[in-house]
Structures are given as structure tokens and as C-alpha cells.
């Protein structure tokens, strides 16, 4: 081995990572090679110098806080930790759920709620014409006529009642207005009578005064 080959062993020896056999080999070489001995001593000195440089405190306050929880992000993060069969199961379930959502029919009519779902799209749900007999059709038509007639009757009755109520209200209003008008006319007549009476009385008094004055004039002559 050449001197250069012992450099690696020197590094192992400096940091106590050398095996017993290698240590003996190195020691033997160092005893016989003054240059390597000096070099090894120099390296030891340098490492001791470096040891004098101690660690310092960073004086930085690093604190991490949790971000607002995102359930979707959490779900996908947890997904990574699931085993393959579980992941596949979830994937299949998700596909089925999506299919069923796309083929879901919800109906709300007359306060009744109807929900119908399936994995695949269904055709039109109208009953086949062959299954409906003429009698059924006649019955259905008759029922429809009856229903329409009932509705029209109800409508007419309701209209009549509404019209009667409306007339009653109108009559009441008219009567009220007539009474108010009569009262107003009566008041006005009373005021005219009172005014006329006052004026006549004033005229009587004026005539009386005039007659007295004329009499006094005649007596003076």
C-alpha cells in the first residue's frame, strides 16, 4: 500500500470508525513513515481546533399552526394511507353512487313525495297501449267528465257566493252613503232655517227701532 492509501484509514481512525485490524495496519505504517505520522498529527490538531467552535442558539421562534380543516383535503390525504382493496372498494362505490344519482327521479305533486332511483337509465314509464282496454278508457273518460263537471259546479257555486257577498257589501256601502248624505242635507236645512230666523229677528228689531224713531220725530213736531 502507498501512503495515499492510508489517508482513508486515517479518517476512520480520527473518528473512531476503524476496525481493530485496520488500526494495527495504520499504526504499523505510521511508525515507519514520518511524513504520514506528521500528517496524521496535523489532522488531529485540526479536528481539535474545529471542536472549539460550539453550536449557537438560533433565537428564532418557529411555530407551525394547523390550517383551517378542509374535509376534502383530509379525505384525499387519508386516502393515500388506505390499502389497495379498500381504495378499489371506495372507487367502485363512488361510481355506483354517481350512476344512481344520475338516474334518480324525484317527484313532488299534491303534497306527495315520490323518489325513484336505478343504476341505469330506464325507458319511458307510460303503460303499454295493449294493456289498456276500451272499457278502461271509457271509465277513465267518464271519471274525467265527472271531475270536470264537479270542478265547474264548485266554481259556479263559489262565484255565486262571492257575487252575493259582493252585492251585500255594495248595498251596505250605498246605504251608509245615503244616510250620510241625508244627514248632511238635514244639517244644511237646519242651518238655513236658523240663519233665516236670525235674519228675520234682526229685521224685526231694526223695523221696531225705526218705528220708534219716526214716532218720536212726530211727537216732537
Amino acid at each position, binding site marked *: 500500500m502507498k501512503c495515499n492509501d492510508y489517508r482513508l484509514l486515517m*479518517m476512520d481512525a480520527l473518528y473512531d470508525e476503524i476496525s481493530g485490524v485496520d488500526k494495527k495496519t495504520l499504526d504499523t505504517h505510521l511508525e515507519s513513515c514520518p511524513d504520514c505520522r506528521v500528517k496524521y498529527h*496535523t489532522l488531529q490538531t485540526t479536528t481539535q481546533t474545529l471542536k*472549539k*467552535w460550539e453550536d*449557537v442558539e*438560533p433565537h428564532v421562534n*418557529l*411555530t407551525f399552526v394547523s390550517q383551517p380543516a378542509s374535509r376534502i383535503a383530509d379525505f384525499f390525504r387519508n386516502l393515500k394511507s388506505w390499502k389497495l382493496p379498500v381504495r378499489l372498494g371506495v372507487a367502485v362505490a363512488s361510481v355506483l353512487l354517481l350512476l344512481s344519482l344520475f338516474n334518480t327521479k324525484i317527484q313532488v305533486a299534491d303534497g306527495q313525495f315520490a323518489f325513484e332511483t336505478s343504476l341505469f337509465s330506464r325507458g319511458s314509464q307510460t303503460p303499454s297501449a295493449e294493456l289498456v282496454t276500451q272499457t278502461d278508457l271509457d271509465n277513465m273518460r267518464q271519471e274525467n267528465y265527472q271531475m270536470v263537471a264537479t270542478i265547474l259546479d264548485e266554481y259556479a257555486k263559489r262565484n255565486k257566493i262571492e257575487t252575493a257577498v259582493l252585492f251585500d257589501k255594495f248595498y251596505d256601502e250605498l246605504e251608509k252613503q245615503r244616510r250620510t248624505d241625508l244627514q248632511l242635507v238635514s244639517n244644511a236645512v237646519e242651518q238655513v232655517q236658523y240663519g233665516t230666523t236670525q235674519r228675520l229677528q234682526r229685521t224685526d228689531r231694526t223695523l221696531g227701532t225705526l218705528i220708534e224713531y219716526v214716532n218720536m220725530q212726530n211727537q216732537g213736531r
Partner: protein
Amino acid sequence: MNDEYLIQEFNAGNVSAFNTLVWRWEKPIYNFILRYIGDSEQAKDVMQHCFIRVFKSLGKLKDHSRFSSWLYQIAMNLCRDELKKKKHQTYSISEVRDFDDGNKTDQKIVLADKEQDAAKLTHHENLAELLQKALMTIPEEQRVVIIMKQYHGMKFTEIADVLKTPLNTIKSRMYYGLDALHNVLQRWGVDREDLGYEM
């Protein structure tokens, strides 16, 4: 609570477990970065970036027992990026000078200037600054090996793993790095008495 347990807790959504990891590792990582790039303020910034990156990608670490190696890898990569940025800045200044002087400034001259500045360091300058400047004069690939070995007590095999470099190359870099440091300190006239230790 070892690192592996804390990582598991963090992956389960416990952020305080990550903070425990930070408190445990911030001092060694800070000192690693400080010795690597040689500037305490920049070292703090790089350390923050380092832990932010760890926070973001810890979930991707498969082998939790390799956490420390992985952490040092991240810190080392960030240090390299930081030094590259510094280098670019230095070159741009040199280029401005080139235009002014009309002469090309040789990088060797710049290095020589640095060494002269360092030589002006006298005994009153503290040991840490002296060694910091000495470390910065040796090649980056040797410096990182010395830091990992000398200050973080990593085995040569671990260093080889982190740097993804053959074991003997690591030992060789260590040898040449220590030798170069010795030469620098000798050139600056730093002897054993200055360092205050007894042999």
C-alpha cells in the same frame, strides 16, 4: 417520543408533533446552515424555508427512520441554492466593475483579496468567526462533509447516503478538507496558543 412517532402523529393531523420536531432539530439545522453559508441572518431565513419545506412534504417521506438524513438533504439543497444566488450577485458586481475598468477581473484575484482580508483577522477576533471564514475558503463539497462529520457526528456511511456519493470519496473529501483548513489556519498565523488548547 422519537422522531418516527412524531412524524406518525403529524401525518395523522397533529401539528404540535411537528412543532416538537422543529424544537428538537432547529438548533442542529441552524448550525449546519450557518457553517455552510457563513451568515447568521441568511442562516435563519434558510432554516425557516427548510422547515416549511419539511412541513409541506413530510407526508411524502416513506421511510421515517431516514428523517434526519432527509432533513439534512433539504437543508443542504437550500444552502446550495443560497450560495448560488450569492455567486450570481458577486458576478454581476464584477461585471459592472469590468465595464468601468475596461479589464476583466479574474476570480482568483477576488479570492486572493478575500484571503488577504481574512489574514488581517487578528487574535482578538473570536474563534467562531475565524473558523467560519476558514471554512468558507475551502471547496463546498469538502466543507459539507466536514460539517456533517465534525459537528453533527454523522457516520461516514450516513454522509455518503445523504450526499449520494461513494464512501471512499466522502473520506477523501474529509481528508483534503481538513488538510486545506490546516493550511489556511497556518497561513493566517493561527497557532495552537491562539486557539487556547493544550496538547
